[in-house]
């Protein structure tokens, strides 16, 4: 049996990944403010540690499934920033030809299955991937991200139950930020996510979602368990959205969360926590930020200069090329 194995990723590399996600999302937000992003934009600012820490434990060949807040997951999965930026901005060279946009980033070449933007549905898709991996018996797990709101949906309960019943090598990473769009989660559920999942009989681990080292340590252990024992694992990572749930039409939503809560989490910025762990001199961080910023500046300049998708591509890729063959073989 081939054993999937992740090459260890250093804390500094995980920090750099988080920094890249943060700066990428900030640039996207600035461009969105100008009305240049079509549709919904769900920034992942504040939740970078979960993406970076989890996916640093991912082994080669393992599929990643996401949802509408997918940019950070995609970047941390190795999906090129150029392709993501162009897709969000609807320019040629976008990963999905302008058809997916911000909420549906997909990159087959890097094992990023895509993002299903209907809440919870990504769990079923990922469970299917995990079933394929279980039967392939190559020692691979599948990784899926969701928010805490996803655990209110029926499909999530079905998926978790089936994953447990069939013994699927699935890691469910729940980004528990305490909000479901503009609704505070405790208002609409009677049990916290970890308790809900444990109540279904799943193995649940809780971690500080803003401490990339804690997330990573948990992900390493849980993915090893998935691969070796074929028992699904749920990682509930407590975190907070620095900005907001979503914006559209160039309009940021007015703040809908209590100032005390925002202030509490401002003190727990995942970049600051990782920086403190690294303990490097300030110059190192300044240089890193400049380097990443320069890289992204080039990415976005090129993206904004790129042409729009050709109109004659609007109706392509509905079906596969072989689909119109007259008689099957």
């Amino acid at each position, binding site marked *: 049996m081939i054993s999937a194995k992740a090459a260890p990723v250093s804390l500094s590399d995980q920090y750099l990944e988080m920094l890249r996600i943060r700066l990428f999302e900030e640039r996207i937000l600035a461009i969105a403010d100008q009305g240049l992003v079509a549709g919904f934009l769900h920034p992942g600012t504040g939740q970078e540690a979960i993406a970076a820490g989890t996916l640093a434990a991912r082994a080669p060949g393992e*599929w990643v*499934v996401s949802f509408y807040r997918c940019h950070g997951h995609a970047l941390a999965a190795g999906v090129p920033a150029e392709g993501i930026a162009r897709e969000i901005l609807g320019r040629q060279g*976008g*990963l*999905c*030809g*302008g*058809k*997916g946009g911000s909420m*549906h980033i*997909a*990159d*087959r070449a890097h094992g990023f*299955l*895509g993002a*299903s933007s*209907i809440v919870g*549905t990504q*769990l*079923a*898709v*990922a*469970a*299917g*991937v*995990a*079933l*394929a*991996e*279980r*039967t392939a018996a190559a020692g691979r797990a599948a990784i899926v991200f969701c928010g805490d709101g996803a655990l209110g949906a*029926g*499909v999530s309960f*079905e*998926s978790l*139950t*089936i994953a447990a*019943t*069939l013994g699927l090598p699935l890691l469910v990473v729940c980004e528990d930020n305490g909000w479901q769009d503009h609704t505070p989660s405790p208002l609409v559920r009677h049990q916290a996510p970890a308790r809900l999942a444990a109540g279904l009989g799943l193995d649940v681990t809780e971690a500080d979602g803003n401490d990339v080292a804690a997330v990573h340590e948990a992900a390493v252990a849980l993915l090893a368990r998935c691969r070796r024992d074929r028992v699904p694992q749920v990682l509930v990572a407590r975190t907070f959205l620095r900005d907001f749930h979503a914006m559209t039409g160039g309009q940021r939503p007015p703040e809908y969360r209590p100032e005390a809560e925002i202030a509490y989490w401002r003190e727990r910025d995942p970049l600051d926590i990782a920086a403190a762990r690294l303990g490097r001199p300030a110059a190192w961080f300044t240089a890193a930020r400049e380097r990443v910023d320069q890289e992204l500046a080039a990415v976005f300049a090129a993206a904004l200069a790129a042409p729009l998708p050709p109109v004659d591509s609007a109706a*392509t*890729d*509905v*079906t*596969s090329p*072989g*689909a119109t*063959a*007259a*008689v*099957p*073989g």
Partner: protein
Amino acid sequence: MFCTYQQDDLIEQYGTDRMVRMPIAENTMVGMAVGMALVGRRVLVSIARAAFLFTAFEPLVNQAATWRYMSGGQYSVPLVIRGLTRGDEHLGAQHEHSAHGLLRQIPGLVVAVPSSPNTAGGLLAAALVHPDPVVVLESPRLYTPEWQRLPEPEPTPAPLPFGVAGRARPGGDVTLVGIGNTVASCLEAAGQLRQHQVSAQVIDLRTAAPLDRDGVAGMIAGNGPAVLVDEAARDCSPMSDLGLHLVQAGALDQDRLALVCGAPVPAPVSPVLAAALLPQAADVTGAALRLLGRPDGG
């Protein structure tokens, strides 16, 4: 293959890795099937009944039928879903659906509606090598103890191409077009019309999507009037679309066309009430004779 019911022979033949028994959770069954298909597996979901597809409508519409497009062509979803429609079972409104009219509105989804055992074999065979999602809607009449007495216009269960209508019976005076259960009704009507010295051609659409508009127009042009017959109500029947095309393509004048469709009413359990809501062979025969200017069959 995913299913919710016992399939011991298949488990014995293929093992539990390939023959996966699921809880009654059609929504997640189809979502999981999408996930497996996305990573390169061929998945067959036996959803049991078309009615349960509505439990799974979200993953069918929002994932199976969109993932290829949303990804800009990076992925495909080779997924087949099969389920029973309606036919003499008397299960009532929540279990009996002629779903092909509704499903054909999902872009890219192939909706196959076999009319006979060989058509069922042929369309399923084609579905299992098709690169994109296919729903195969099977009539319960194909499974009755008397299935061998169903009219069988196809010579073999060889694979049938999608979007190609078949000629179930040749005839030169009038054309009867059916889909699924109504193909048998049309063949029965053709037999009745023969008593009136009327030679009726019967066409089997085979797939509600793709709809073989041009093929049917070619078979109808110069062949007299046409009666289009569907158990689905005209509000969502492919026959409404087909009728418009036949007139616009010049295959028929508008007064040479009749639609005989089911009533837009949920299915009642009472057999006599159900029969009153569905096209019967006599309705088709009557419509054909009226179009031929022979309402009394004289």
